[in-house]
């Protein structure tokens, strides 16, 4: 029994160590980030050149946010469908989904954006229009009008950019959904099926609610990644913050002002969103 105090002692020491360590472990990098952001915003309010650049560039924020949000919502739909296809027993669905995912993952996003905007979308719309003309030729004017309602001239670069981002990210999200669904133990599907539910009903009421909850942090991370990748749509002359920064720099030759502000704007958005994702992750873990 005399040894007991000795056994307790090291535990206290470990506690002391860890409390010292927690000061060392403070997220200094994060404070540095905040400082940089505060410093730049301070310059923006005090320096006229930076102020002018900021007022010009911030107009692009609406386009950046809108492009990201709309693309993401559509990408979720693509991703969910392709994710379900990837685990489907149907050979056709399975292979179509796999082809989609592998095709997208094998091509750089920048190239995909060019390709979808200048090849994919026009070819698809031309095809639809041709079907429309053919239907009209058969006398089915009503159906024909539906297929010819949208022509390539109507499709703005913004719309093509959103299509490209959504289609690209759909493939990435598909893998997240697939992993999420496969993380649910087999017994859940069996229990649902044994109650008489169809495959679709079991997915909808039992598997997907659990799977989506499991992958929420991953979905959040991809949203942050999408905010950054939305800068690529500037190559289509879509006036997001990247494009307006380039415009500003090109016309005023104030490259430094334009690109410092651009970088800090992205950083501000991604850091805030990442913090949101981390909070979400912590809350989900608490509920487990």
């Amino acid at each position, binding site marked *: 029994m005399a040894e007991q105090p000795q056994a307790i002692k090291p535990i206290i020491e470990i506690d002391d160590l860890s409390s010292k360590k927690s000061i060392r472990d403070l997220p200094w990098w994060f404070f540095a980030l905040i400082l940089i952001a505060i410093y730049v915003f301070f310059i923006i309010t005090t320096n006229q050149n930076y102020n002018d650049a900021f007022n010009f560039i911030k107009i692009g924020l609406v386009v950046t946010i809108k492009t990201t949000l709309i693309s993401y919502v559509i990408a979720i739909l693509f991703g969910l469908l392709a994710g379900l296809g990837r685990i489907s027993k149907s050979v056709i669905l399975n292979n179509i989904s796999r082809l989609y995912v592998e095709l997208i993952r094998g091509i750089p996003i920048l190239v995909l954006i060019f390709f979808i905007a200048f090849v994919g979308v026009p070819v698809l719309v031309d095809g639809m229009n041709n079907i429309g003309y053919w239907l009209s030729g058969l006398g089915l004017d009503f159906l024909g009008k539906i297929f010819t309602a949208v022509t390539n001239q109507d499709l703005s670069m913004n719309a093509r950019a959103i299509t490209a981002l959504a289609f690209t990210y759909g493939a990435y999200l598909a893998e997240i959904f697939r992993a999420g669904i496969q993380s649910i133990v087999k017994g859940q599907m*069996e229990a649902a*099926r044994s*109650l008489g539910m169809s495959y679709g*009903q079991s997915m909808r009421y039992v598997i997907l609610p659990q799977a989506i909850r499991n992958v929420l942090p991953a979905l959040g991370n991809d949203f942050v990644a999408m905010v950054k990748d939305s800068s690529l749509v500037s190559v289509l002359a879509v006036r997001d913050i990247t494009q307006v920064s380039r415009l500003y720099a090109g016309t005023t030759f104030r490259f430094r002002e334009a690109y410092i502000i651009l970088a800090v704007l992205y950083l501000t958005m991604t850091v805030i969103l990442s913090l949101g994702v981390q909070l979400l992750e912590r809350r989900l873990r608490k509920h487990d």
Partner: protein
Amino acid sequence: MTDQKPIIVVKDLYKYFGEIKAVDGVSMDIEQGKVVVVIGPSGSGKSTLLRCINHLEEPTSGEIWIDGEKLTHAAKQINEIRAEIGMVFQLFNLFPHLSVLENVTLAQKVIRGRSQDEANQIAMEKLKRVGIPEKADAYPSNLSGGQQQRVAIARALAMDPKIMLFDEPTSALDPEMIKEVLDVMLDLAQEGMTMVCVSHEMGFVRSAADEVVFMDFGKIVEHTTPEGLFNNPQNDRTKLFLSQILEH
């Protein structure tokens, strides 16, 4: 009762997993209201046989008839038949994202088309029957194993099944919780539910079973009554198995 039509008919059932013959030519009839316990060493195919009855495993060949209807591979028919057969699993398989009440009402609403109120009322009835109405708003993760298994039984009963299948319902439970689950099963048996149970609870066999099926290597070695099993086992393998599980 003797000339009653069997509610479950299994005819020449085979189920192979690749080279492994999990069920190797099984035939049996089960009459309505009977409690049949399937016993046998692990890997003898008893769980697979049970899972073939509601088509969770697709038989390699053979026929299964439920209540006079032959099971085909048609998804619609399988879904309809499954709604009439309750199943209780070894690991409970409650839906962790739903409360106890929601676990018991989900299939009632989706499959039986019952209103929320009606489903709730039936769910509470079944939860009372298994003895845990006070846990209706709890989540599965906050329940003990025994409580979870009783909720699983209530979830199956809420569909008003004609048959209940139990796949080792007490194997994953701590000893002190086995009784509360067996009591519920005993209660069901006495009310005349047709039950097929894979279980090694010999107490349950003694007090509730009408028939016992002993399986080994995918085949039915002996199909007898509890008295026949305990007092007069015919087959050497049955004797050996009994001596092994009754020893301790």
